[in-house]
Every structure is written in structure tokens, then in C-alpha cells.
């Protein structure tokens, strides 16, 4: 057993950092942030994962970044830097999208919220905060539109699971029953006025993400009030470990794994979030060429047949040991109780039911190509 890496004092912290520590969370370095990976008090990753799938769990996701684009040309600016069609957004609606390099690969994936007529909020990944902000600023200079980095202004808490709406409704006057998935509203929440509440998440469940001021005392109080209000629903605090297994079961991409600056939109299978028919955007012409020439690799879902867990970076092989691709994410899937993985392989090997081998510690372990998402929530909401 090698030693577990120690955390260094230079890591960035969210406003809930001391709350996590007090609750006994295990902290790790995640892209330069000291974040909870699991809460032993909640039972650890598997228990947290199951709580979100069957009841409700809460996550501190304040490390995510926020960029606001506001001004007369805000829509044109957003359209230029993102692949989805932001002109289809009504005020208070949100969409999954991505910022692309000219070659059609990923700067980052984002959720774009339309807050007002000429006012958009982009929620971005923690590890790409500075890169994203520079990129957005650099590529929107020609537009009459302000670009503001609000990343340090919010404590962002995700409340996820089929009981999330019942929990959150106890704490706010906003009507959550009327709020559809990927829409936002405002309300008084835990006594704080005009709080942005988005029905979004990264778990494959129904849920919400709330944006409160990043004041430490306020953040700690809201976190506690959510836990207290959720006690009757079995709420647990969750860390990044279960966030990862939840998003993997739901096949939601993670930057640096399924998407990166060397992977394009078609390879990642994010076609339905990329509108080639909208006005010009960065990456569009390269994607048109790539589309015409056909993709050389595609993201496949794998389920291990033999015992063994495919981990990020492991090679995918054919029956005679020839290398076909590599694993981008792999784990034991706590809800499905199977070992699953996502892997880039040549399209001819990605047919459903196809048998492949993952090289696990020098040995080929059999896996089958399966349909994704591995987990789909029952549509009762």
C-alpha cells in the first residue's frame, strides 16, 4: 500500500472548508482545491452515492467558476464562443454547452444560464477557471459586452436526488414545483433574499444548484440548515468521490477525461449540444471538416465481464492484445453494482455487445460494449 498523498498548504479553499473539516470529511487536492472526497460520517462514497440515487445528498461545488457576460451584444458574444444555440434560451433558461478551440476541441464544457435579456452566466470547471476566463475575455473583445469573473463571489451548493425538491422547498418561498429541469428561478432562501436557484446538476438525478454569497458564516449556516431540513428525507453530505461515480453512471463527461483540448465534439458524442446550423462559432469550420472525414475514435461504454476495475488511462485491447484505445474513466458503479468504464476506441470496435479487453496491471480483462448512459433515472418528476 503506497502512502496517501498529503495535502499542501497552498491549496485553495471554499467558504465551506472549515465546515467540511469539522464534519470529519476526508480532504484531497482536486485541481488545486482542497475539497472533501468523502464523508466517513455519512458512510463514505458508496453510502453517499446511494443516498443521492434513492433520497438526497448535498455537495459543495463552490470551486466551480462563474463568468458573466452582460451588455447589448451579450447574445452575439455567447454565440461566438459556445457550440450550443444560445438564441434558443428564454430568460431564466439554461443549456449545456461547451467552449471550443478553433480545431473543434474543448476549452471546457459549461452550463449557460440566461439571467436577463442581455445577461448570461457561464458556469465552468474548477481546474479551468483562469484559462476559461482569459479565453472568454480574449474572444469577445469585438462585442459590446462586459465580461466579469464572479468565481469568488458564490458558494455553490448542489442538492441532488429525487427528494431534493421536497427538501429545498422547505427553505425557500420560490415555487420549485413549477421549475423545470434546466431552468432557473429566484427566491428567499434560508433568509437570504434574491438567491439564484437552478434546477441543474451532475449526478443523473433531479436536483438543484443554489448560488449564495461566499461569506463563510452565511455559507456554513445555509449548509447546516439544509442538512437539518433534510434529516427527515435522509440527506447526507457528499464529496467529490460520489460526485464522480454518480456522473460516470449517468455518462456525464469530465474535463480532462472524456473531453479535453485534444478531443473533438464528435468523438465525445456531444453532437446534440452542438448546433452546426447556428451562426458562426469558434470551432465550427474544423468540426464541419471533421464531420465530413469521419471520426477515428468514439466514446464507448464498457461493462467488465471478468473481475477487475478499469481505471483512467488503462489500454483497451482486442483478443490478440492489439491496442484499440484507452479508458477515460472507470470505477465500481455503486448503484448498478458493476464495474463500468468509458473508453475511446475506433468506431468499428464500439458496436453494442462487442467484446474488448482492458489491460489491468499487465493482464487482459474481458469487457463488453454496453449502451450508455449506464444509469437513467426513472422519469417521474
Amino acid at each position, binding site marked *: 500500500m503506497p502512502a496517501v498523498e498529503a495535502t499542501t498548504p497552498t491549496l485553495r479553499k471554499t467558504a465551506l472548508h472549515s465546515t467540511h473539516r469539522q464534519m470529519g470529511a476526508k480532504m484531497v487536492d482536486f485541481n488545486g482545491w482542497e475539497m472533501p472526497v468523502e464523508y466517513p460520517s455519512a458512510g463514505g462514497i458508496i453510502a453517499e452515492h446511494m443516498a443521492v440515487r434513492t433520497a438526497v445528498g448535498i455537495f459543495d461545488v463552490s470551486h466551480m467558476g462563474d463568468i458573466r457576460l452582460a451588455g447589448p451584444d451579450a447574445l452575439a458574444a455567447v454565440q461566438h464562443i459556445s457550440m450550443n444555440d444560445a438564441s434558443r434560451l428564454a430568460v431564466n433558461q439554461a443549456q449545456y454547452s461547451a467552449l471550443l478551440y478553433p480545431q473543434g476541441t474543448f476549452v471546457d464544457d459549461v452550463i449557460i444560464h440566461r439571467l436577463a435579456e442581455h445577461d448570461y452566466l457561464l458556469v465552468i470547471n474548477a481546474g479551468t477557471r483562469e484559462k476559461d476566463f482569459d479565453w472568454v475575455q480574449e474572444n469577445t473583445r469585438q462585442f459590446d459586452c462586459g465580461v466579469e469573473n464572479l468565481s469568488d463571489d458564490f458558494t455553490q451548493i448542489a442538492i441532488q436526488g429525487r427528494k431534493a425538491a421536497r427538501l429545498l422547498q422547505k427553505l425557500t418561498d420560490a415555487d420549485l414545483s413549477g421549475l423545470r429541469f434546466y431552468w432557473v428561478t429566484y427566491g428567499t432562501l434560508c433568509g437570504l433574499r434574491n438567491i439564484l436557484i437552478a434546477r441543474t446538476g451532475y449526478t443523473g438525478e433531479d436536483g438543484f444548484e443554489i448560488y449564495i454569497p461566499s461569506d463563510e458564516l452565511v455559507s456554513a449556516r445555509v449548509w447546516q440548515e439544509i442538512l437539518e431540513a433534510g434529516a427527515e428525507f435522509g440527506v447526507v453530505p457528499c464529496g467529490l468521490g460520489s460526485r464522480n461515480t454518480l456522473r460516470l453512471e449517468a455518462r456525464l463527461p469530465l474535463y480532462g477525461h472524456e473531453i479535453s483540448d485534444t478531443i473533438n465534439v464528435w468523438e465525445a458524442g456531444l453532437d446534440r449540444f452542438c448546433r452546426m446550423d447556428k451562426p458562426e462559432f469558434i470551432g465550427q469550420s474544423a468540426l464541419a471538416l471533421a464531420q465530413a472525414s469521419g471520426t477515428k475514435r468514439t466514446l464507448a461504454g464498457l461493462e467488465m465481464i471478468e473481475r477487475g476495475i478499469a481505471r483512467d488511462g488503462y489500454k483497451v485491447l482486442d483478443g490478440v492484445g492489439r491496442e484499440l484505445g484507452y479508458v477515460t474513466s472507470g470505477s465500481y458503479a*455503486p448503484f448498478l453494482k458493476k464495474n463500468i468504464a468509458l473508453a475511446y476506441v475506433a468506431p468499428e470496435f464500439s458496436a453494442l455487445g462487442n467484446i474488448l479487453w482492458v489491460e489491468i496491471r499487465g493482464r487482459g480483462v474481458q469487457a463488453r460494449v454496453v449502451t450508455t448512459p449506464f444509469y437513467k433515472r426513472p422519469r417521474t418528476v
Partner: protein
Amino acid sequence: MSYPTDFKYTKEHEWIKGDGKVATIGITHYAQDSLGDIVFVELPKTGTQITKGKTFGSVESVKAVSDLYAPASGVVTDVNAELANSPEKVNKDPHGSWMIKINLQDPNELNSLLSAADYEKFINEETAH
């Protein structure tokens, strides 16, 4: 969690309990706590020769995979088959959930390993920095 004083320990967080020529091997409380939920334990077959300091198997949690290092050399005489279907027992009772038993090549090899007190001192230093 206390560390049994009749066990010896490695800096890679295995424990070994010697009883004459025979020794029982597992991983420590600190190891299981660092790993989190254990979902798979891969162990050698009976009859396998293992060598002190070399890997003899692996343990996988949801988060990560870790090699198991042999605290001493010998031939595997027994494997805890229960862990194949219930790997979480290592989390629940790390010092009771043994992994393998070996016939020691040289019982004196255990003398160079850490005592319970030395091991606790070692992990306290690991946690502190």
C-alpha cells in the same frame, strides 16, 4: 482503532502475525481508512511463492487501486475466500479480516518490521505533514 501488539507492520500498511513457521497477513486500519470503500481484493493462489517487499496482490476501493506488498517471504498456504464476495469486511474489521497465510521462509524476517508502537508513530507522522 488500536493496533494489536502481537502484530508486526510495514510502512506500506500491511500487518503480519507470526506463529512459529506460519504467518497471517492483512492490511491495517489506516490503510482501509485511506482507501475508503473496498470493492475488490485480488489475492494469490495457494502454493504461490511470495517475496518480502514484492507485490503479492492488490486491493481496490471505489477511489483507487493499491498494491499489496509482502511483509515476509514464504509460500501461500491459505487464502481468505470470504473476501472475494465480501471485500467490505476489510473496512469493517481490518485486523480481523486476514488475506493470506504463508509458511515463512525465515521467521527472523519479522524482526525487521515495525512494532505496533513504531507503526502508530509512523502513521501519525504521515498524517501530520
